[in-house]
């Protein structure tokens, strides 16, 4: 008598869990970065030779497609914005579950800066939600729960628990339900620039100790160790940023040596020269490059990787034909860049391009405090604009040629001082 009831109950629970899985799929949000991460699973297993991990600098500064174009190196980027150290450890392990790379490159973003688990809840979700469930993911969730008691395991295991308030817009866009092979391989670049300035003591001794964050370093240590345990080499990097002291550089170098990993600091003078980074056109902001900068950095990185690791050239190789096709879509996306240089209260916007810029006209729309205040058309890719302090501005530039609209770029919103 009991048996029949128990069977019925179990059957019901199974149906419930199945439906829950489907519902969760619908409630898992999608945006460009999330979709890029989810596309990691679309790559054939064990087809990558390099895996990139880290936070937003890694996401914006290193473009796997450039590596492929220049050296034929095949790689994927697991980086996300404001990634928590616990998540970085997870992404490294997750990458190793599906791929067997020769090198794993990690940018330890939170080594010297305390990570705010409470305030960054949304970003932790963006970093974790796209990836599949595994024991390592559960461990990462537990680590997060310990840092912020308001974030529950259920929130991460079942997206519907966290995002059910979005039910009105559930059927707006189905792209998040179907993932395809990516043409950017995890990279999402920026197409605007601002002028940046070096902070005090850049790559010099500041007199302040580096201050390594104990909790973050534990996760990085575990991440590095899991690579070394499988015979995979680790390259620790520090990507370009405007504030970086010699003490911090040495602290990371020391850590790399202690772990038996390699270390490449892009803030070093020699490397900087090699890249030829321009502080006017190549930076999205003080800590991130834009696409132009990423191209330069990835070129130098590719040379370094080729010299120091045994990597294959997969151009024209069998099974990698889709990469050739991806180049076209990739280059089309990143053709234009909107630059911005400020001089007192005059801002010069200009458009640069990786392709020929003939016979194009440019339409500029200026917004002040979210209302359009001016619009102009020019034949040259450049325009000046007067701004007042304390108001918020942004610009939308549309590039038009004989075939029609080619691209439309929107600058970030700025308040000028």
């Amino acid at each position, binding site marked *: 008598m009991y048996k029949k009831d128990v069977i*019925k*109950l179990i059957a*019901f629970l199974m149906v419930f869990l199945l439906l*829950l899985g489907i519902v969760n799929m619908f409630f898992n949000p999608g945006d460009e970065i999330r979709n890029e991460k989810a596309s990691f699973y679309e790559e054939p297993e064990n087809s990558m030779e390099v895996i990139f991990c880290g936070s937003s600098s890694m996401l914006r500064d290193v473009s796997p497609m450039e590596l492929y174009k220049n050296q034929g190196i095949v790689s994927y980027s697991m980086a996300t914005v404001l990634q928590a150290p616990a998540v970085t450890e997870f992404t490294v392990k997750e990458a190793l579950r599906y791929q067997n790379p020769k090198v794993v490159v990690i940018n330890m973003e939170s080594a010297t800066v305390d990570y705010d688990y409470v305030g960054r809840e949304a970003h932790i979700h963006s970093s974790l939600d796209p990836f599949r469930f595994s024991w390592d993911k559960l461990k990462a969730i537990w680590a997060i729960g310990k840092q912020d008691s308001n*974030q529950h395991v259920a929130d991460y295991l079942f997206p519907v628990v966290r995002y*059910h*308030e979005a039910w*009105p817009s559930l059927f707006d866009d189905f792209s998040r339900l179907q993932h395809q092979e990516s043409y950017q391989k995890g990279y999402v670049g920026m197409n605007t620039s601002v002028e940046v300035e070096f902070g005090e003591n850049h790559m010099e001794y500041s007199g302040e100790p580096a201050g390594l964050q104990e909790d973050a370093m534990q996760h990085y240590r575990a991440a590095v160790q899991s690579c070394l345990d499988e015979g995979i080499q680790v390259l620790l990097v520090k990507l370009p940023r405007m504030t970086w002291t010699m003490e911090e550089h040495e602290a990371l170098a020391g850590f790399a040596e202690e772990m038996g990993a390699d270390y490449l600091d892009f803030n070093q003078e020699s490397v900087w020269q090699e890249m030829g980074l321009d502080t006017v056109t190549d930076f999205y902001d003080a800590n991130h490059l834009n696409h132009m900068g990423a191209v330069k950095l990835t070129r130098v990185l590719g040379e370094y990787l080729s010299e120091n690791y045994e990597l294959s050239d997969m151009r024209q190789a069998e099974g990698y034909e889709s990469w050739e096709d991806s180049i076209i879509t990739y280059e089309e996306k990143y053709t234009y860049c909107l630059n911005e240089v400020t001089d007192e209260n005059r801002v010069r916007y200009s458009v640069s391009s990786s392709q020929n810029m003939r016979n194009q006209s440019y339409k500029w729309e200026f917004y002040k405090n979210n209302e359009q205040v001016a619009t102009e058309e020019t034949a040259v890719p450049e325009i000046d604009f007067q701004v007042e302090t304390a108001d918020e501005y942004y610009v939308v530039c549309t590039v038009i040629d004989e075939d029609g609209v080619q691209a439309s770029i929107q600058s970030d919103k700025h308040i000028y001082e």
Partner: protein
Amino acid sequence: MSLISLEFLVFLGITAIIYFLAPKKVQWIVLLIANYVFYAFAGAKYIPFLLYTTFTTYIGCLWLSKLNRKYKETLAELKGSLDREQKKRLKTASIRQKRWVVALVCVLNFGVLGLVKYSDFLVDNINGILSALSLPVLEMTVDWILPLGISFYTFQAIGYLVDVYRDQVEAERNFFKTALFLSFFPQLVQGPISRYEQLAHQLTEEHRFDYDRFKKGAYLILWGLFKKLVIAERIVRISNWVFNVENQATGVLIFIGAVAYSIRVYTDFSGGIDIARGAAQILGIELTQNFERPYFATTIGEFWRRWHMSLGSWFRDYVFYPLSLSKGLSKAGKWGRKYLGNYIGKLIPVLTSQFVVFTLIGVWHGSSWKYIAFGFYHGIMIVGGILLGPKLHKIGEDRGINMTSFGFRVFQILRTFIIVVFGRIFTMGNSLTQSMGYYAKSFQFDLDFLTDGLLSKWGFHRAEFLLLVAALFLLFIVSVLQERGMQIRDTLLKKHMLIQWMVYLALIFTVIIFGVYGYGYASSDFIYRGF
């Protein structure tokens, strides 16, 4: 832990499994342990309070039981040799002794309750008087902790005590079984307040797992979650907005806010009760009903027989009856009949004790003048109803109104609903003064509120508001069916398994998807939790 948390469901599940797998003889011990584990989660520091009440009640009941026995034995021994006068004196003596015991236990327990809940209120008011007389004020800033469920378990304990006093139940000789009766975890947070006769034996009896009963309990829990998370947590945005002085709501908006609040307090409270009763049902224990579609009441009196029923019947049996039949009020009644006429005189005991009962009910809700005013208001409405009832009835008859028609019944329901809604406004302000301000503002008529943007001011986009309306409609339909006597869960269990599955899955996913809970929303505790 909150009744609407995942933790509670897990706790319930684990408790149920252990409960049904345990040897039948120790089931009640498993339950006792579970009760105290639950209470510890709420706050281990509260446990001494619960034990204190349990202990004083246990001793008091044993003592009363001893006095009862002594009286009966003496009476049996001397039955033949006593006349009526002597028998009466014996009885009076016994009653007097028993009354001392009851008084002592009451003071010990209501004293503590009064201290933790009302001392701040008393001190504030005393200080108000003192400062008005330019006398130095009392300095009493003690941070009283409010043990979970103290208002509920204290009342349940005293009810049991008085039942023993009245020799209606036998005192429990086992201390742990007494503790079991006073700590049953589903009812700890917000009731219902149970009677010893109804609940105690169920807690110590053996229970076997029953799948149908389990399904009924699960369904009740789901329905409670639906009422609380989909309706109450949503509609509260309206009343919060209206009764936030910064928004300067006036006129009809205040009434709308009061209606929203009335719906909210009903779905919140009855939702929590459903979860409690469903949880108990899964364990095989039936807790008494606390709500019976109160807004379908045709008179205020009937409303209070359908709203918070366990509290109402507690006050009826332990305050109203004793008070209205007491010597004092009987004499007042006689005096009234002599000097004020038969009609009013007869009503004096009833009216006075009704007034006292409702004032106390107001006080029970919280330590603020606004709650006392709330109680007063209902007292006046009840008394008014009793006094004017027959006269209004006559007027109706003279005018040839058919008072048994459906239309008239609807009129009565709406009339009662409006009276209740209006009374809620007393509780909406932060203080009595603020509540009175809302009443004043409700008479300022202003139709500008009909401009669009009201929904977004309240915090809804169209889709969500429609959802709320749909949910309310579902609640209404279910309520009407229940009013007509339909036993929904029994009917459901007779249907084909797939239909049952669909209903359960629909409810579960409605709660998961449309419930207001989780990181996105910060859900409020049950309103009655702080009692």
